[in-house]
Each structure stands twice: as C-alpha cells, then as structure tokens.
C-alpha cells in the first residue's frame, strides 16, 4: 500500500519531516518499508502554450511545434522550436515543456539536439515521462494541460514550473501492512487517523482529522429510475448502498486526480472509474460503477450464482460460477463477482451516460474464498477480505457522487439506496487498567490509558468497579480494593480490536513499546532440559566432524523417480513414502522415507564441482507412512547417513593418497557404534554382494541413471581410477539409532533393504557403569557413554516395539 504525503497532509497536519513520520509510524506498528521521492531529479519543466504545430519537413512521423514558454513581459517572450513525436496538441493548448537544461525524473537531462535536420530546443512531454501513471507507449500522445482551476494552486500559467502545478515534489510512503493494520490502514484516511493519534502527543491540534466528505444535492431523476436493488443474501452482503449519477461525460480525469492515483500505484483509466478508485484509496471502501443503461430491467440483484452461470470479468477472462459465488446480477445475468471484480457487460465506457454507483459491505470470508478460487487479487478483494467498515459505506458513496459531479460533469440522482437490515454496532470492551499494566509491565493509571485510547478516537467511559464476585476477586491480579474499569467503545472501522488484550496493544503502541522497561521473569528457578537422545545426537555430530566428516542438510523432499534410479524392487518398503498433495515441483513431491538419495545427491553435486574427496554425514528426519493414513501422523524418525567417496583425505607432499574402500566405511560405522556404546556385527546381506554393494559404485548408466549422466565426466577424479562411493545409512526402524537397546538388540528378521550389508547388535549391548582397568588380560572396552544414557528417565518399550515418538500422533482438537 502506497500513501502520498501530499494527500495525507490534506487530512491531517503532519508535524514532522517525512523520514521522521515514517520512523514514528513504523514504531507504532504501521511499518513504512520505504520513503520514496519518485519525482526526484525533476527540474526545469515548465508549462508552455503551443502556437503552431506543423509537419516535420523531412519526416511523416514527426512534428514541429512552436511553443511559447515565457509570456510577453519586459524581458520579452521566449519561444522554442521543438521536434515532437506526436501531433495531438492544437495551437492554444497548454503542454509541459522540457527546455534544454531541464531534467526529467530519474535524472534524464534534456539537451538541444538535431533531429532530421531540424534543431529541437527541448522536448514536449507525455504523461508517462512525468510518471503520471500512464504506461509508456510509442504512440503515446503529448500531455495537454487543461486550463481550468482544478489544480491545487489555481489555473496553470505560461512558464509555471510543473512541480508546483502538479505537486511533483511529493513523497510516497510504501507501507508493509500486517493483516490487522490492513483492516484500517488500507486507506489514506486510515493512515491519517494513525498520524493524528501520534501527532496529538506533540500538539493536540494535530490530533484532528479533516474528513474528505462529499456534499451533493440530488438534482436529477429519483435514484429508483436509475436502478433498483434487491439483496437476496443479506448474510453475505450485510450492506448495499447505491447512488445514481446521470448525464456523465466520460473522459480523462483532471491531472491532480491522476497524479494521486499514480502516486498510489493505480493507473488512470477514465474519470468515472478513476473516481471510484480514488475514493477507494481515500476511504478504503471499494466502489463499483455499473453502466445503468446496460443493466437489464434496471435492476441489481445480490444473489448466489446459478449453476453453470458464467461471466466475463473486466480482465477479459470468462469465469465459471456456481452457488458458492456471490454475484451482483441484473434481472437476467451476472454483472459482477461481488467484492472481487465487475463484469465486462456493464463496464463504464466512453458512451456511458448514467451509472449506478455501488458501495457495499461483503462478508470477508466469502470474498476471500472467491478471490482465491479465481486467483483474482484485486484491490477491492484485498480490502473486502480484511474488513471494510460498513458504517463508512455511505460516506464513501457520497464522496464519490460529489467527485463525479465535479470532475465528470455528472448530475446526482435524487436519494440513495441503502440496504442495511442489521446495522453493526460498535463494540464495547471492558478494560481493567490494572490488568493492562500487568500484561504490559507498565504503571499507567486509568486516566493515562483513557487518554491514549481517546487519541485513537475510541470512546472511553470510566466506571468505578467494586470487587467482582467469584473468581476475579480471588486472583492475585485483582486485589480486593476499589478499582476503575474502563468501558471502551471501539469504532467499527477497527474490527481488529476485539478484546481487552487488543486494547492493551493499542495502549502499548501509542505509549511506545520502547518506553516499557525490560525486566526478567520472576518465579521459580528451573533447569533447562534437553532430551537425552538429542544430547546424544549432538555429541555424535560433533564426533563425526572431529573424525573428518562434514555435515550436510538436505531437503526433506524426494523425486518419485529416485527409487527406479536406485533400482529398488517394485515392492520395496522404501517405496512407501508420504506424498504431498500440492508440491511446488515434481522433484519435491515425496517426503523422504530414507536419507540415501539425499546424501547421494549432495555427494554427486560436490563431485560435479570437482571435489576429489567427499566425506559427508547427515543426521536427519525421515517420514514413514502410518497405518491409518488420514488419521495418524506419519512416523518421524531421526536417522544417520554416512558417505565416503574418492580419496581418503586431503593431498599432501609427503603422503600418497588412496581411495576409500569398504573397510574405511566399516571402521567409521564401528567407531560411531563404539562411541554410543553399542556393539555391532556385520554380515553380507541378501542379495549377497561382496564386499560391498557395487550398486552404489561406478554409476555408468544403469542403476544410477540420472545422476550418472550428470556426473559421468567428473566422476573419475584421476584417469584410470573409478571413484567409488561408500555409503552407510541407518535404514531400518529396528536400528532406530540412537534409540534404545531393546530394539537394536534384535537380529532383524528380514534382510536389510539397502541390499548391501547390514549391521545389528547381537546379544547385549547395554553396558552400565565401568570396570577398573586390570593389569591382567586385555583392557576392558569401557565407556562412560553407555546406552543407558539414552534411556534414562524414559520408559523402555517392550521388546520389538517401536520406540515411541515424544509426541502424540493422533488427532485431538481440544485440551
């Protein structure tokens, strides 16, 4: 959301320079992302009068203009001859002239130059060159300045600087609004209310907001002759205000209005549409103008769409509707998707003479669902889905009617349609100042708090309250003596303020978060705990890094084709993976059930980058589908993968390197097992591949097809030596490392699925305590790091049962 400072200043007196205002708004929660001066650099451009417009003698596409830029005075008139690309200005028209030496926004300096044999003394400007919103086009016409008095500083004069004429020294704030502030700050008026609340601290006079209201008297026919309105769905459309304007003269809107739209990021279209957009920016109330003559039977019906109904929206796309969609219809067909976008069939055109102006309040959820479904993020939808104050609706409609009369020559119809069966009442919230202080850590008395709230135009009644019966009186927060309660009436435009805590936030942000003193929580001392298994995991990670392996972190996603590339049999359990319903890309559509593909990919990427020694590990989570898929969360396990590839270490002048082999990896696995105090044994697995699976090695097409293709060239670090990848992965739930012994002590019943080799713990691996080193016999292999460390304080599962996850996987909605 962009807000022009010039526009803002019309409604509120800003006592600070732009940067300071931005800082103060940011610190009050209305985050100013950037302070822009879009016209920075613009200088020397003046108003001139065309005296003659002729064809360029040497070109059909060019024109030669004679422009008066200084009136006939004592020093004499100054006239310039300028070559122009468009010939639309007629003699007598006022245009914007950049004489030699002028600078356009962005620093483009204009010089005298020769074009096709004619010296051009400057340039005639089009709207896009002054950043007035229009899209730059090759056939864009020269901007003609209307000689009327609608400009802020009166009618334009020859030689007048356009900066003062069109207020091109404006500052634009770019706001980054969180959803709650978006409710009331998506309009210049809303921001002005915030500015006023802040400025009132400096000067109470600055706390007043000059509301941009429009006054008009119905001079035309009664509005019922323009159209009549039937709201069939008051739940989804609680308020519908309609005004009629006739005898309109569509055309370009005045420059001041175009400029404000452009500063706010909207493109000028024509004066009728521009007025609806202008009022939307000003009041936050989206408006729509229907060409009343094109409304069948001059009727507006707010209803749900009929099955198989369709509508071509203003963006030219045909939308298929159904009963879920709220539409604005005439007697026969839909003419707009309520709150989202109007239809082409009743669009305002240059032929439009009378319009029905719609200002409504739609149900935010319904608008949100519809805009998401059709993928239309229109300015209207963005506002409606947050909340548009239903009590501002007629004010905005009045403002629009008044503007249409002013800038489009319209005549207002008599009267106003207003369907508002159940008016929204402002909320009244009970606020206990003591409770607010407790929540904020402040010491503000009831009067201070009330004053802060009144700056936001909240009405506050102070009520002396006596100890309430029951629970409240008993709590520590509420001592038994007399207290003041505040009853706060929140305007309906502040839908985000719903409870005492919300009011506390309003108090805090106006008081200033920075002024609240930092304290430390008081209370019982506690010791911070980490689950023993997490401590163990971290120790193993540090140990592996000490052993020369580098930790990687890979995405938890997999490509479904990876199982074929790794030649897993079709019925392999690893192929049962949790599938995402809406992945970003196909190669991220599965949640990985094992780490192997991820670390292989990480290694391959490094080999592609010409690494010659890759030693990796990842301690990561995998997800295994639960039995009852939609009722139970997938099982989540922490696994460890180790990978060695290439040489056994960095090169050195005094050592010959060798390639790692199976026994390097086996040694590493044994080291990890010893470190965590687990005995391990190795045996060939089925299918028997000795001594280690060729399946992982030398990917020459075949098994590792895809990554073989991308790595083949760099796969051999030196000529004649094929690189071999040695990989270990804790690949079974039964080896739920570093889980409890009970589950690791069992010899797995089925062959290890990795197909290379497997490791299990025969017999006992639980060692408790330590033994004194004995002089006789071999030293006992003891470790202070026994398995019982992992299980301390947790219940050991039954033999064979899976180790329980530390959270419940079931679905429970209530406490």
């Amino acid at each position: 959301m962009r807000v022009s400072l010039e526009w803002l200043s019309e409604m509120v007196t800003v006592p600070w320079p732009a940067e300071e205002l931005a800082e103060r708004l940011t610190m009050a929660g209305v985050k100013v992302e950037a302070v822009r001066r879009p016209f920075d650099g613009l200088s020397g451009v003046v108003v001139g009068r065309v005296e003659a417009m002729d064809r360029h003698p040497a070109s059909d596409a060019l024109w030669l203009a004679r422009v008066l830029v200084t009136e006939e005075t004592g020093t004499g008139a100054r006239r310039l001859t300028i070559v122009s690309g468009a010939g639309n200005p007629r003699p007598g028209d006022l245009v914007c002239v950049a004489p030699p030496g002028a600078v356009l926004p962005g620093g483009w300096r204009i010089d005298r130059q020769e074009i096709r044999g004619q010296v051009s003394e400057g340039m005639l400007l089009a709207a896009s060159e002054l950043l007035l919103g229009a899209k730059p086009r090759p056939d864009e016409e020269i901007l003609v300045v209307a000689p009327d008095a609608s400009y802020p500083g009166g009618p334009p004069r020859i030689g007048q600087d356009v900066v003062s004429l069109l207020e091109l020294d404006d500052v634009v704030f770019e706001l980054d609004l969180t959803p709650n502030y978006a409710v009331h700050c998506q309009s210049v008026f809303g921001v002005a209310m915030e500015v006023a609340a802040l400025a009132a601290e400096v000067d109470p006079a600055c706390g007043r907001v000059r509301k941009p209201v429009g006054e008009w008297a119905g001079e035309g026919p009664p509005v019922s002759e323009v159209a009549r309105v039937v709201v069939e769905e008051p739940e989804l459309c609680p308020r519908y205000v309609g005004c009629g304007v006739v005898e309109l003269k569509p055309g370009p809107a005045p420059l001041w209005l175009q400029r404000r739209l452009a500063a706010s990021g909207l493109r000028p279209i024509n004066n009728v549409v521009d007025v609806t957009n202008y009022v939307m920016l000003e009041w936050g109330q989206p408006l729509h103008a229907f060409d009343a003559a094109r409304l069948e039977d001059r009727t507006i019906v707010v209803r749900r769409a009929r099955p198989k109904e369709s509508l071509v929206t203003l963006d030219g796309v045909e939308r298929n509707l159904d009963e879920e969609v709220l539409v604005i219809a005439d007697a026969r067909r839909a003419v707009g998707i309520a709150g989202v976008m109007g239809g082409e069939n009743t669009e305002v055109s240059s032929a439009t003479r009378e319009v029905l102006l719609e200002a409504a309040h739609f149900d935010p959820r319904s608008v949100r669902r519809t805009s998401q479904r059709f993928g239309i993020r229109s300015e209207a939808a963005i506002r409606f889905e947050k909340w548009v104050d239903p009590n501002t609706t007629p004010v905005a409609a009045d403002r629009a009617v008044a503007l249409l009369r002013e800038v489009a020559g319209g005549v207002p119809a008599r009267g106003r349609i207003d369907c508002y069966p159940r008016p929204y009442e402002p909320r009244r919230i009970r606020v206990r100042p003591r409770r607010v202080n407790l929540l904020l850590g402040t010491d503000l008395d009831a009067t201070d708090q009330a004053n802060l709230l009144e700056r936001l135009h909240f009405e506050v009644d102070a009520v002396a309250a006596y100890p309430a019966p029951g629970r409240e009186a008993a709590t520590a927060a509420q001592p038994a003596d007399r207290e003041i309660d505040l009853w706060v009436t929140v305007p309906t435009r502040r839908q985000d303020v719903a409870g005492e805590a919300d009011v506390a936030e309003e108090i805090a942000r106006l008081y200033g978060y920075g002024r609240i003193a930092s304290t430390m929580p008081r209370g019982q001392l506690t010791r911070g705990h980490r689950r023993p298994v997490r401590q163990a995991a971290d120790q193993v990670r540090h140990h592996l890094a000490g052993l020369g392996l580098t930790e990687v972190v890979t995405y938890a996603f997999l490509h479904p084709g990876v199982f074929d590339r790794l030649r897993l049999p079709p019925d392999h359990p690893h192929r049962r993976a949790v599938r995402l319903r809406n992945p970003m890309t196909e190669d991220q559509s599965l949640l990985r059930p094992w780490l192997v593909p991820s670390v292989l990919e990480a290694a391959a990427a490094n080999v592609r980058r010409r690494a010659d020694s890759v030693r990796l590990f990842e301690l990561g989570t995998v997800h295994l589908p639960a039995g009852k898929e939609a009722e139970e969360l997938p099982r989540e396990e922490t696994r460890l993968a180790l990978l060695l590839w290439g040489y056994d270490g960095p090169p050195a002048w005094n050592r010959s390197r060798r390639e790692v082999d199976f026994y390097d990896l086996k040694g590493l696995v044994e080291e990890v097992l010893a470190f965590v105090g687990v005995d391990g044994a190795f045996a060939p697995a089925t299918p028997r591949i000795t001594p280690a699976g060729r399946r992982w090695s030398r990917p020459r097409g075949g098994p590792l097809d895809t990554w073989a293709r991308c790595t083949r060239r760099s796969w051999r670090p030196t000529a004649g030596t094929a690189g071999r990848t040695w990989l270990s992965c804790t690949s079974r739930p039964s080896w739920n490392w570093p889980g409890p012994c009970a589950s690791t002590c069992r010899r797995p019943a089925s062959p290890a699925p990795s197909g290379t080799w497997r490791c299990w713990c025969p017999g006992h691996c639980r060692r408790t305590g330590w033994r004194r080193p004995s002089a006789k016999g071999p030293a006992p292999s003891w470790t202070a790091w026994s398995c019982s460390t992992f299980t301390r304080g947790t219940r050991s599962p039954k033999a064979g049962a899976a180790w329980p996850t530390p959270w419940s996987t079931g679905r429970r909605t209530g406490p």
Partner: protein
Amino acid sequence: MTELRELERALSAVEAEARSAVEAAARPEELEALRLRYLGKKGRLTALKREVGRLPAELRPEFGRMVNRASAAIEAMLASRLEALARDETARRLEAERLDVTFPGRPWPRGHLHPVYQVWEAIEAIFVAMGFDVAEGPQVEWDDYNFVALNIPKDHPARDMQQSFYVAGEMLLRTQTSPVQIRYMRARCPELPIRMIAPGRVFRRDDDATHSPMFHQVEGLVVDRGISLGDLKGCLDLFAREMFGAAARTRFRPSYFPFTEPSAEVDVSCTVCGGTGCRTCGYSGWLEILGAGMVHPQVLANGGYDPEEVTGFAFGMGIERIAMLRYGVDDLRLFFGNDLRFLEQF
C-alpha cells in the same frame, strides 16, 4: 742397568707406535683390534713384560711400574679416542637426520558442522542456560495444531503469509514451530512455570534467495503468573546480547500474529555497521530477527490454562536468518546447496 735402559726404550717405542695407531683409527672396531694388538695376551706390551727375566731382581719392580704406566697410558689413549669417535658419530648422525620444520605437516582431515545447526545449538545453549526446556513436535502436523488452535481459523488472511504443503486430509507440513506451544501446554497443564523452546524444521511454499521451501525455526514460550511484555523484552534483550555480542541493542515494534496480543517485531542493531546504517540493514541500522508477543488469551485457553490466572509470552525466529546475519551469508540457498567449499568455511 743397560738392559733396563734398553727395555725402557722399547716400551717407549711401543707406546709411541700405539699412540700413532690409535690416533689413526677411524672406527670403534679398529680400536678394539689395537687393544688386542698392544694389550692382549699376545700383544706387544705383554711380550715386553716377559723380558723381565733378563733383569736383576732389584730392578724388576722398577720395570713392572714402567710397564703398568705404559699400559695405562695406552688404555687412556684408546678410551679417549673411542669417546671422540662416538662424539663424531653422534654429530654426524645429527647432521644427517636434521628436520626441516618449516615443511608442511601431513594434514589430518577435519570435518565441519553445518552452519545452520551450529546456530541452532548456540540458540539452544542460551535458552537452556536460562532455564528453558527443549521441546519437539512433529514436522507433519494437524491443521488444528498448526493453525486453528493458534487462532488462525480457515479463511483467515494470516494463512496467506504461510502457504502450506498439504499431505492428506487435515495433515500438512507445519509452517511454523508454534504448534509445539499447544502440544507442550496440553502435555504440561496445569504445571507452572512453562519455559520452553522448540527448534525444528518448518515448510512453506516459497523458493527464492530469501525463502526456501524448508527452513528452521525456534519457538519460545513462557507461561506463569504475572508474566509481562516487559519480561518478554528482558528475555529477548538478553538473548540478543548473548547471540550478537554485548553491544547489541534491540528494538520492539508493534506487529501482528494471530496467536499473540500484543505482538511485536524485534529488531537488533545491525551486526555489520552497529547501527549507523549500511547495505545489510538497508541503511536503517536495524535488522529484523524475530517475532514475539504476549500469548493470546484464546491460545492459553486452547492450551488448557486460564488466561485470567496466568499470562505468557511467545517468540519465534528463523535460524537461517540468524545464521545469515552471524556469518554474513546473503543467499539462503547456499545453506541447502551443500557445497563442501562453502561448508568447510564454518
């Protein structure tokens, strides 16, 4: 008498001969041979000793002393020569075995922990020392926990800020670590105080230089009687100083999260320029590091606590964000590219 003179001359000759022979010897073995040649049973000195019979009895002791003196002299000669040879040998060997200590050593391979996990551990350590428990929750989570119990019902605009990956039915990949708040409170209720952090993986449908579909967050939650916004400020001030150095300052700005009220966005003084303004902080002097706030009464109630009786604060931060600030990394994707040349710098 002349015989004695004669023998004395012969002794001197042997001694002189031995001296020159010993001095010429270059190796210990040669010295051993010389010992045998002069002092052995068949040696030259022993042979001279036998000549004693030619002398009259009164001169014999005199001759004996002369022989012993010569024998001792030769012994001494041999010993000193042996010692000299040994000294030379050591010197020679030392010379031969001298090391050039300036040559590079044989490298030991060193591994590296991932920077994101290093920061994760650092954050954990700070809060554990402050008495926070480390809690966990599942990465595949129920919509109820991830959104509804946190005051984000269906059709809530806040869902736009967090585009989710859906799994099956009402299951999704958690978009934040905040659901652990609910799980933790429900598991502990009515215990007090609650002080926990929950680090973990989260997922959002986003992928560019500053967003990744998977990243890591740390959630924090404190619930007790009388917890205030001031306490939140105090805790996070302390965290910022521990994490970014004693000079780090914080700034709290009002913000919005559906599950906290009041809410705050927390900035820390720029780690690069210290607050004077630079490219990293967009010339503002501040860096956004985390979101926080007082736990919304409804969320406390969803956790089983009575919001009239207890209050609490919660915060959440992105670990990658902190890692980027701490190490000056400007592209989030580097953390998940797993380029060893990158990882080996941490």
